Structures are given as structure tokens and as C-alpha cells.
């Protein structure tokens, strides 16, 4: 046996006084940390493979299990931290690119936490959302520049297709393949009941989800997986995925072992083959090329579906967003660098892109300066942790927000960041049938709905406090925001004043 060089991350502690040796942990851990002694009865534990997913902890009927950080000190060094040393050892052993799941864990500034919200006092009344109407209905799509009406008052404007959402929160793209069908179905069910949309990612639409096509965003990405006429038709809008916040400039790779019969059918690729999405769309090398694809998709759907373009938040995001708007996009989704992923090269995830707060503010301002803001809808994505983040994003200029990590946490995800291993103990990021069935859509859609309904209530409360009774009056209303502990430059980009100003 070779030397491991890397100490384990966690220790599973079993309280012998509480453990009844029921073996639930043994049967639940897909990393095989728990096992029976030779007597077949006594449960034992080997923590080496523990990823701290908490499946055993949460399932244990007596609360006998606890996960602890395994503390093994290195000689202190602010430069060569244990993390870098361990990553070097991992690469020395494998020769491979480091892969991680979920969003970056690095302590980059989170501007949501440095923005404060306003409330009404004396000079304008606050509103109680429990007693007065409060509108959070959101309408996405290209708006006409002006309205013309005939004599009787009927509009003569040829209205572009619009998408009505009952909440400014949508579920971001997660493909069937990267997540399980049960997980996607839970989101679809929740979207339908909440009056919002879920996103197929680029994994195609599984036949089991055909009842949910009126709340589906179908994605057309660089791999073009599962794209055909019916797929485009059976949607509320079409999204062209140019980039993803967690891995800007990088394509996708669904390993062949996750491509089972179902995934292969949905994606229209051979079973067991690697599903590789190229980094660029090979037919989009310019804004003009993007315009052609947008036009083609609109033609294929008889101009009935709005077309969205999803881009990662990168340095020139404002100019790129402007280009997308001019290329005919009806909706632009900007994905910040803290956004999640099923698998991304660790170095890309942790170093490439910019925060959604700055990207959103810059893009909104640029589109406003150019007078084309109303021709598109802006959707922000990339780690919204609570309703206050959503309110701040809307006040910075977003029409709606994409959430994925939060609904996943509602479904059991514990952010163990090992989605890429395909051994998700919660049945989310896996295609193994014995793990997928752990996620019962009948339970999980309720939990996701509860979460979004709770956020809706909170958004209404916050808006009411500001004296605003419609999300339309909050949109781009940066006077409702104040920065705290930010530099002049940061305030300038965010377009907000400092607290006290």
C-alpha cells in the first residue's frame, strides 16, 4: 500500500451508549464508512471516506452519530496552507485536474452582506402585506418601446411573447444527468404549484416531465443535447447557455457511467458515452452568430417563445450583455462566480469570474445608459442564500433571480461538494437507482414549495417595510440600498450610496 499523504477530513463519532446497532447507517452510507463487525450485529465506522454529507447523522434514530472535523495540524504557514499542500498531494497521486462540486467555498467578498435595505419612517407609510395587496408577480420578456392604442382603447402593439411568474424566483439550470430524475421532477412539481419555472439544463426533457412543459425553461447549450423541435416547442422559454458562473469559459463533461438508458434517451446520445459539452458553441463566434441562433430558435417556435441568453459574470459582462440584447435576446441571465455546479475544475471555480452583485449592477447600468434596458429582462443567478439577497438583487436591477443551491439544500443537500463522484447519499447528484429512490418527489416538492413560499412572504414583508407594494417599483430602485464598509469604487459600480448618506 502506498502512503496516502493526505489526512482524512472528518471523523464520524459513534456514541456507544446511544447506538442500538440497528445498522441504518451501514445501509445508508454510499461511501461505505459504516460496516458491521464479524458478528454481523455491531456497527463500526471507518471515517476515511467520510464527506460530511450527514446522511447517517440525520437518519440515525437515536442521534448516536456526530461528524467532527479531523484536526491534524501542519506547521503554520500562511502561504503554504494545508489545503494547497493537500491539493498538490492529490495531483501528485493522480496527475489529474482537480474537480469539485457546488459553488466556490473561498472567502471572496459577498456584497449582499455589505448592502443594507431601507424602510419607511414617518414621511411615507410602510405597508402591512398581511392586510394590503402586495404584488410580486413578475413578467419576463421583451417589452415594446411604446404602446399605441386604437380608438376603443385596444392595443395595436404587436406584443412580443411574455412569461408570467408568480414569484421573482426561478429554479436555475440543472440537467437530468447531473441531478437525478427525482430531483428534477421535484423542482418541476414545485415550479408548477408555485407558478414559476424550472430549467432543464442541457440534459433534454425526460418523458416523465411532459406534464410540466408549461413550466419548463429548455436549454440549448454547446453540446445541443436533447434538442429537437418538440423540445423547443414544449417550453415556456428557450435559453441559450453560453456560460456558467461556476466555470466560465469551460464546457461540461458528464462521465459515461452516469449516462444510463434514461439519460441517453433524454440527451439523444449513446448509452455509456461521455456527454461532452464543448467550451464554446462552435456556431457562435460573434454577436452576429448569436443573433443567427436566436433567430433560428424563434423561427423554429413560430416566434411564440422568448429566447434567453445565459452568460457567466466575467470582466466585460456589461458590454457582453449589451451585445446579447442587441442580438435579439429577450432575457439575459447573468450567472455570478459563486454559482453552483455538478462538477467544475477547482481552479476555474475558485478563480474565474466576478461576483453577481457587481456584474448585475454594471450590466443594468450599461443597458440603461444605452436606452435598451426595457427591451430585455435581466435574470440574476449565482448563489442567493435568502430572501434578502433576492430583494437586493431586484433593487440592483434584476427582473428575476435563479436559485438552485437553496432548493437543493431544501431537498437534503448538505454542500459536501462531492457531486462529481456520483455517490450522492441524498439521491440528488447521482444516477444510481438505489440512491435516486431516496429522494421522494412527493415529499421534496413540498419542501421546495415551503421554502419559496416562505421567501415570498419575506420579500413581501421587506417590500412592505419600504412602503413598496409591487416588485415592479422595487426593480432597479437602488435608492433602497446603502453600502456598508465598501470603497468609493465599489459603491460607484454598485450604483449605491454609503450608509448614512
Amino acid at each position: 500500500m502506498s502512503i496516502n499523504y493526505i489526512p482524512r477530513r472528518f471523523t464520524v463519532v459513534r456514541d456507544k451508549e446511544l447506538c442500538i446497532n440497528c445498522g441504518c447507517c451501514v445501509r445508508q452510507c454510499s461511501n461505505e464508512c459504516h460496516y458491521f463487525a464479524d458478528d454481523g450485529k455491531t456497527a463500526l465506522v471507518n471515517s476515511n471516506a467520510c464527506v460530511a454529507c450527514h446522511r447517517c447523522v440525520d437518519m440515525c434514530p437515536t442521534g448516536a452519530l456526530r461528524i467532527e472535523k479531523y484536526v491534524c495540524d501542519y506547521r503554520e504557514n500562511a502561504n503554504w496552507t494545508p489545503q494547497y499542500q493537500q491539493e498538490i498531494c492529490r495531483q501528485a497521486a493522480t496527475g489529474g485536474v482537480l474537480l469539485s462540486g457546488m459553488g466556490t467555498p473561498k472567502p471572496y467578498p459577498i456584497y449582499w452582506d455589505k448592502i443594507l435595505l431601507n424602510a419607511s419612517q414617518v414621511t411615507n407609510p410602510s405597508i402591512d402585506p398581511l392586510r394590503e395587496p402586495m404584488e410580486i408577480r413578475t413578467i419576463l420578456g421583451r417589452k415594446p418601446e411604446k404602446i399605441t392604442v386604437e380608438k376603443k382603447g385596444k392595443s395595436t402593439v404587436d406584443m412580443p411573447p411574455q412569461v408570467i411568474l408568480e414569484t421573482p424566483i426561478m429554479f436555475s439550470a440543472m440537467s437530468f444527468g447531473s441531478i437525478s430524475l427525482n430531483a428534477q421532477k421535484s423542482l418541476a412539481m414545485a415550479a408548477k404549484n408555485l407558478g414559476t419555472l424550472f430549467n432543464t439544463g442541457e440534459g433534454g426533457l425526460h418523458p416523465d416531465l411532459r406534464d410540466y412543459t408549461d413550466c419548463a425553461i429548455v436549454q440549448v447549450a454547446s453540446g445541443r443535447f436533447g434538442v429537437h423541435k418538440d423540445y423547443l416547442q414544449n417550453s415556456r422559454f428557450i435559453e441559450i447557455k453560453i456560460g456558467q458562473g461556476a466555470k466560465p469559459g469551460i464546457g461540461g463533461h458528464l462521465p459515461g457511467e452516469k449516462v444510463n438508458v434514461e439519460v441517453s434517451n433524454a440527451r439523444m446520445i449513446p448509452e455509456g458515452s461521455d456527454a461532452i459539452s464543448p467550451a464554446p458553441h462552435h456556431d457562435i463566434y460573434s454577436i452576429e452568430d448569436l443573433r443567427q441562433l436566436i433567430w433560428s430558435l424563434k423561427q423554429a417556435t413560430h416566434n411564440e417563445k422568448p429566447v434567453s441568453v445565459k452568460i457567466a459574470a466575467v470582466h466585460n459582462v456589461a458590454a457582453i450583455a449589451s451585445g446579447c440584447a442587441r442580438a435579439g435576446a429577450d432575457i439575459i441571465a447573468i450567472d455570478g462566480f459563486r454559482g453552483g455546479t455538478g462538477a467544475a475544475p477547482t481552479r476555474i471555480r475558485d478563480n474565474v469570474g466576478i461576483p453577481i452583485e457587481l456584474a448585475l449592477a454594471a450590466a443594468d447600468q450599461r443597458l440603461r445608459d444605452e436606452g435598451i434596458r426595457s427591451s430585455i429582462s435581466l435574470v440574476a443567478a449565482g448563489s442567493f442564500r435568502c430572501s434578502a439577497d433576492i430583494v437586493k438583487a431586484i433593487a440592483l436591477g434584476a427582473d428575476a433571480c435563479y436559485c438552485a443551491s437553496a432548493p437543493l439544500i431544501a431537498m437534503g443537500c448538505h454542500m459536501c461538494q462531492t457531486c462529481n463522484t456520483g455517490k450522492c447519499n441524498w439521491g440528488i447528484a447521482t444516477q444510481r437507482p438505489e440512491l435516486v429512490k431516496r429522494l421522494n418527489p412527493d415529499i421534496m416538492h413540498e419542501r421546495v414549495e415551503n421554502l419559496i413560499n416562505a421567501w415570498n412572504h419575506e420579500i413581501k414583508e421587506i417590500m412592505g417595510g419600504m412602503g413598496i407594494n409591487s416588485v415592479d417599483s422595487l426593480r432597479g430602485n437602488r435608492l433602497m440600498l446603502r453600502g456598508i464598509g465598501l470603497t468609493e469604487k465599489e459603491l460607484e459600480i454598485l450604483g449605491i450610496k454609503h450608509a448614512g448618506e
Partner: protein
Amino acid sequence: MKKVYAKEELCLNCRLCEVYCKTAHSQSKDIIKANKFESPEPVSRVTVCGDKMLSAAVNCRHCDSPKCVEACITGAMQKDKKTGIVWVDEDKCIGCMTCLAVCPFGCIKTGKFAVKCDLCRTEDEPACVKNCPNRALVYADLGGGE
């Protein structure tokens, strides 16, 4: 009548139904005492059969014409006319286990007496159903016979 139905496509093979059944039918009703210290050891009325790929919690079907009741030589095994629950009167049972031999579903367990599911008669919902983490057990009246 309301019965417990197992959904094998949702069963996790976690066997928590067994743990909670055992606890519900123990002297102490305390999960740790029941599973570690009680003597005689309480018996779970439900058994999860199968493995991680396919499993289901098997318990008494409370048949319309139960073989166990027909076979019982002392009249201990009886079907409640009102509720339809098949149960054992422990005062009458002599532990001959004829019922075990005739049950087509293997739902009778051996203890000091014949032990079987009583649908937690005194509770609103059987303990196995109440504690199933994935709603793989359903307590419902789906009609139909055995």
C-alpha cells in the same frame, strides 16, 4: 379497512420501521431501552425483505379470511369484526405456532407467544408508517381483498 401498504420503489432498506415497531411494542416505549436493555427483547412485527436495490417492508395483510385465525387451535388468533384487525389474545395463545406455519406472507414472528402486527391498535397511525423517512409505507384504505 385501512391497511399498511409498502411501496417498494421508495423503500430505502433503512429498516427504521423495524426499530420503531420494536419500540412501539416494548414495555418501556423508549427507543434505547427497548433496543438495548429490555428482556425479553421486544420483537418487530414488520420485516424489511430485500437488499439496497429492491426492498419492501413486509407486514400482516389482515386478510379477509385469515388462514392464521382458521388454524388457531385455542381461538387466541382472532379477527376483530369491527376494525378488521387480526390480533393475538396473549392470554389464550399457547405458542404452538400453527399460525406461523399457515401464514402465506410469513408475517407471524416467534416470541413467547405468536407475535404479529396489530396496526398499533391504540394509536392513530402505526409506528412504522409514522416514522418511515421516505413515505414508503402508506396507511390507507385502498379497498380490495387480501
